[in-house]
């Protein structure tokens, strides 16, 4: 992989991540203005879980809860730097740069540990 392609790839991951996450957050926010943070766009029974609870996201997305849509955007946003680092691991590996493949992998592991393990 040429350095130019590498840069294009990293830049692309960042742009797509920010645009997609901002879109979900915006839709969730506007929906909340319309039906409230505890409501649902389907008019179903109002949500009982706290908006800070990110569990059961697919189920709550299915009922179009504004909070769940915004949460999906926030999770996508959090995943964007992780995807950028993962793309960098691939980029350095394809460039044949072992030292930076190792360094980037270490950063990826720190990120995954903080997101999935630490509280």
């Amino acid at each position: 992989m040429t350095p130019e392609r590498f840069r294009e790839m990293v830049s692309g991951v960042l742009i797509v991540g920010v645009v997609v996450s901002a879109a979900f957050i915006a839709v969730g926010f506007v929906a909340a203005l319309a039906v409230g943070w505890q409501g649902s766009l389907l008019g179903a029974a109002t949500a009982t879980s706290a908006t800070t609870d990110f569990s059961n996201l697919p189920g709550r997305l299915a009922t179009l809860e504004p909070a769940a849509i915004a949460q999906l955007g926030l999770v996508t946003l959090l995943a964007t730097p992780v995807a950028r680092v993962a793309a960098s691991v691939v980029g350095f590996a394809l460039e044949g740069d072992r030292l930076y493949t190792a360094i980037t992998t270490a950063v990826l592991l720190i990120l995954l540990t903080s997101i999935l393990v630490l509280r």
Partner: protein
Amino acid sequence: MTPQADLGIFAISVAAGLIGALAGVGGGILVIPALTIGFGVDIHLAIGASIVSVIATSSGAAAAYVRDRMTDMRVGMFLELATTTGAVCGALLAAVVAPAFLYVLLGVVLLGSAGIQVSRMGEETPPTVSTSGLATRLRLASSYPDRKLGREVPYSAQRIPLGFALMWIAGVVSGLLGIGSGVLKVIAMDGAMRLPMKVSSATSNFMIGVTAAASAGIYLGRGDVDPQIAAPVALGVLTGALIGARFLQHISNRSVRLIFLPVLIAVGVETIGRGLGFGI
């Protein structure tokens, strides 16, 4: 939260993002005082919302800088080892320290950032320096295209252990306060490691998103990222930063920063006052 409060948080976040971009300090550091002092939001929820907005603005800006070859991805990745571990320590520490300490530290960082902005105005390319053994082994020597000078400017990282240590501290501050710590990162790179100012700013932006993600994951798991606050803050700060970036293309950085420095100082003093228990 009522729609009025939702829109109020959005509006103040646009202002924080805009002023932050124009003053050169980022939006997080201003949005936290605005939320806590202005809207009575719990400081931990304000930090959780701010750190998420930091990911959005830095990733957006980094995408452009990476393409322009202003970002040194090796310098960035190497130093992210320090900032991410620091950010994890900061986020874990934030849960146990007193909120008063967070307010005072935030105010001190705000005042420090304002002071540094004044002292660094008008700096240019640092003199070219010899490449050390460590910089060669870590491949921390490169060049960047300087449009103003119309040529490639070579550089090589100096005092790498000092830069690495300062980056760890920048990570702790970022994780503890939910801010990007961009000013500290730039000091570590151009002050300690003698990297060109333009490369330092671009690479700092590149690193901020990853640093913020390391602590944002912890805040989210802990229940400190509330969409009711984080959604309008992320959208607002991003909008304000985009407007600010557009403004900056047409006007000189220096005069704009001078205009907004008093705002930083006022917010910094107010935040320290809040931490020390003075009413506002």
